[in-house]
Structures are given as C-alpha cells and as structure tokens.
C-alpha cells in the first residue's frame, strides 16, 4: 500500500499538471487561427503546434512539473513531521523510496501523454489534423528527457534537508545546465542537450521544414536517460538506507 501513500503525495501535482497541460493544449488548438493569422511568417498547423506546445509553453510546463514531482520523499516528510510514522511501518526504506519514485514517474508519464491525447482529439474541432503518431513520438521524448529532470530533483530531495529545498536547488541547477549547452565542446555533442532532444530541434530525427519527427527516435539516448534517472533514484535509496531520522 505504499503506492497509495505515494499516489496521494503526488496526486495534486499530477492531476493539476495534467489539467493545466490539457487546458494549455486545448487553448493552443482553439486559438490557432488567431495566432497563425498574426504570425510574422505563415506556418502550417503542424508547425504551429510544434512551436507552441513542443518548443514553448507545453514543454516548459512539463519540465517544471517534472521538477516539482521529483521534490518529495523521506526528507520532505521529516520536515513535515510524518517521517516517524512512515518509518514505523513494516516496510524497508528501499520500498518507501521505490514506490515514491515509481508514482512520481507515473505522474511524469501522464503529463507527457497529455498532449498526445488532447492534440489529436481537439484538432478536428478546428478542422485540422494532428497525427497521433507524431504526438506519441513527442510523448516518448518527453518521458525520456523528463525522467532525467525528475530523477535529478528526486536525488536532490534525498540529499538536501527541507520541504522545498530540492526544488529550489534543482531549478537554478537545470538553468545552469542550459547555459552549459552554449559551450563549444557541448555543441559537438548534441545528444547531451536534453532541451533539444526533448523537442527534436537540431536533431537528425526531426525535420525542421515540416516540423515533424521523420527519422527513428533516439532510442539509445532515451535509454541512457532512463538509466541515468534510475541511477539517481538508486543513489537516493542508498542515501536513505544509512540516514538517521
């Protein structure tokens, strides 16, 4: 039943985030005419969706919520005064960390899938089509890249004391990571730029003219991201195993 506790801890962010994402996607679809008519350069509906959802507000909301979802765990519980009750349950610390990580990541996946549900369903109401395969492709990219942001914050939340310290530390850390992407040697390794992998920009699997995912998805980098995120979670579990409460 630790899954239930973890679900209750992440429920508000997950459901609220899914709702916010769905509304944002819905609004983007609904106002597509007005937005495209006022655009400096004419663009296709698919390009408009990519620029608005996958390269702008949708991606930003998603990455921010990944960080928020990662900011939980036993140290946060300690700050809230509930760690004593949790640790008195007949469950190992590893199980507690594992279920919190799983349910938090389930929230990340739900957020990643939201545009894939909303965009293909809402587009016909504006006499447009957004391919399900495209939306699902971006969801996979989001789920992989979001795992790194989520896992990194999750690890910070199991290292830094305080209720929201991990979130406050994660945001500038990730901004710093963004700044690092401008370094010349980093530009030679485009797959290390998660901000580009997540929306396909400058990537071989993305056609910049059509704004469509055309090549095979970067399965190896996505797998590596999941491994890295699992490593963060594993490190968080190790840290909790030795910790005094």
């Amino acid at each position, binding site marked *: *039943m630790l899954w*239930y*506790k973890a679900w*209750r*801890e992440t429920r508000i962010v997950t459901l609220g985030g899914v709702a916010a994402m769905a509304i944002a996607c819905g609004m983007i679809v609904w106002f597509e005419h007005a937005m495209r008519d006022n655009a400096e350069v004419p663009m296709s509906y698919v390009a408009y969706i990519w620029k608005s959802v996958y390269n702008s507000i949708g991606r930003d909301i998603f990455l921010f919520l990944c960080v928020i979802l990662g900011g939980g765990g036993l140290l946060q519980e300690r700050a*809230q*005064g*509930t*760690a*004593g*009750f949790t*640790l*008195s*349950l*007949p*469950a*190992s*610390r590893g199980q507690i960390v594992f279920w919190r990580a799983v349910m938090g990541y389930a929230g990340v996946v739900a957020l990643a899938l939201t545009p894939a549900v909303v965009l293909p369903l809402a587009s016909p109401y504006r006499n447009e089509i957004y391919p399900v395969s495209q939306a699902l492709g971006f969801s996979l990219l989001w789920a992989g890249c979001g795992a790194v942001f989520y896992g990194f914050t999750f690890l910070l939340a199991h290292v830094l004391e305080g209720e929201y310290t991990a979130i406050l530390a994660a945001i500038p850390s990730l901004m710093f990571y963004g700044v690092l992407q401008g370094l010349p040697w980093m530009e030679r390794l485009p797959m290390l730029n998660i901000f580009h992998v997540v929306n396909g920009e400058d990537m071989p699997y993305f056609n910049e003219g059509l704004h469509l995912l055309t090549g095979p998805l970067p399965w190896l980098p996505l797998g590596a991201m999941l491994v890295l995120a699992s490593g963060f979670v594993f490190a968080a579990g190790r840290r909790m*195993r*030795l910790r*005094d*409460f």
Partner: protein
Amino acid sequence: MLERVIQTDALTKHYGEFHAVNALNCSVRAERITGFLGRNGAGKSSTIKMLLGMIRPTSGTGSVLGYKIDDPKQSIEIRQRIAYVGEDKGLYGYMTVGQLIWFTRSFYADWQPDVEKRLLAEYRLPLGRKVKALSKGMRTKLALLLALARRPALLILDEPTEGLDPVSIEELLQTLVMAPMQGTTVFFSSHQLSEVERVADDILMIDRGVAVLDMPLEQIRENYRRVTFGFGHPVPTLPQLDGMERVRIEGRQVSILASRNSEAIAGMGHEVGAATVDVAPISLREIFLETVQEQNKRDQEAHWEQTHALV
C-alpha cells in the same frame, strides 16, 4: 515466550560531540507495563528510535522480541510485531481519518476491526475529516487508534497522553492496564509521573543516556525511603552506608534518599546524635527529581559557562 522483549547491551548513540545514549544496558519484561522516564534530552526518544530502526546505534547492540535492532531485515520483523506512537504524532495531513485507517490496516495481519470500531466511537473521530483539520488532541487519539486497533506483542508509546483531555487520558490509562492481559507488553515514556505511577509495573529511568533506575515499581515502593535527620548542633560527618543514593544537608537538617537499607541508615542517624530521625515513603516524582535534579543543575551551569565563554 520471551521473558525480555527489549534488551540492550551498551547501546550508544552519539551525534557528533553530543552523547544522546551512552552505553545503555536495560531490559523490559514481557507482558508488563514499563514506564520510561527521563528529563528532556535524556535519551528516551533516541533509545526508542534505535529500537525501531529509525536511527543506527553508534555502538552496542539491542534486540526487540528477539530480533536484532541493527539488522534492516530484522527491523522490519520488529515493526511488524509492535505498535508505536511517536512523540510528534505526525500523520499524513492529506488523508482523511478513514483513508489513514484503511492505509495503516493494510500493513498488519493482526488488525482488529471490532477494536477499531470501538475506538472510533470512543474517540469520536470523524472518518471523513482530513487529518490536517484535526485538533492536536484528536490527532493523538487517531495515532493511538492506529496503534491500539491491533494485537501487537509490544506497544511503544512516546509521550502518549500529551495533548489529551483528562477523560481521554483516563480511558487510555485503562486501555494500557488491560493490554498485558491480552499478551501485549507496554513500554511508554512520559513526563506525567503520577500517570506512570498509576499504571506501570516497572520503571526504567535514564539520564544523560545512562540507566539510573531499572526496577519494578513495587520494589521501589518497598525499598525507597526518605530518611531525615535533625541535629541540635552542626551536622557531623556521616558515614556512607549501602543504599544512600543522595545526601542533602541544609543547615542542621540532613535529607537522605535511600534506595534500600533505610532501617540501618536511620540507626546510623541515632548513632551520630541526630535529635530527630524520620523515615518516610517517597513518591516516584521525588525519586525522579532527586535523581536528575543535581545533574540538571550541573548541566545548566555548564551550559551557562559555555554560552558566556562564547560571548
């Protein structure tokens, strides 16, 4: 059946320079109620947390119900068999009372639905209310319900009556008294010495992380006495006899806390020329104060000196 449900051997916990628990040797007898006493910072909560596996001992060992406290796997077995109510009574504020009961129940095979119903009615806990909306007293009652609605081998309570109204305290004390009859050992810490004296069979008192008294309450009542001498002249040098725990001299009055041998101590008073010799029973509260007060004063002085040295 185990005769000793809790046993510690030189159990020690240091937080840097601070020695919270200092080579503690103690044992708790099965199917009895043990009152765990000590002033603030004496090491009670640290001891309890080590027993539950929440903190790791710096050195020494301990066992609960025969399971080693420093083995993570055995620690889970311990928590499966015991019930615990912590000092802060921190429960998940985002769950309702009903959800928290349902969640907690899922971990224990020995959950007693009839006891749960009885306690819900007794404590008048609203099932649909969020835990964060409960008063401190109601939260304490909920924490007690979660612990008492089972048939644990051992019940560990850290300041269980804190925040409760007098009627609830009375009901809780009655529940604790009944627990050993159902095979449950009770180990509880409290600063309410009158409550401890009412229900405890055994007393374990610690100070600065060391056991200073570990004895059945009955034996304490039988043996502990306050022996007072009054002199018509300045107090002479008193010989140190067996059982003289504390000697306090104020003017021409001598007050001795005797843990045993009070008759011989009284006889010594007559021998050294005391005009009056009085032997009186002593309450647990007086024993506690006598035992920890001097150390408390020394600690306060040391702290004062340390603070002023820093200034």
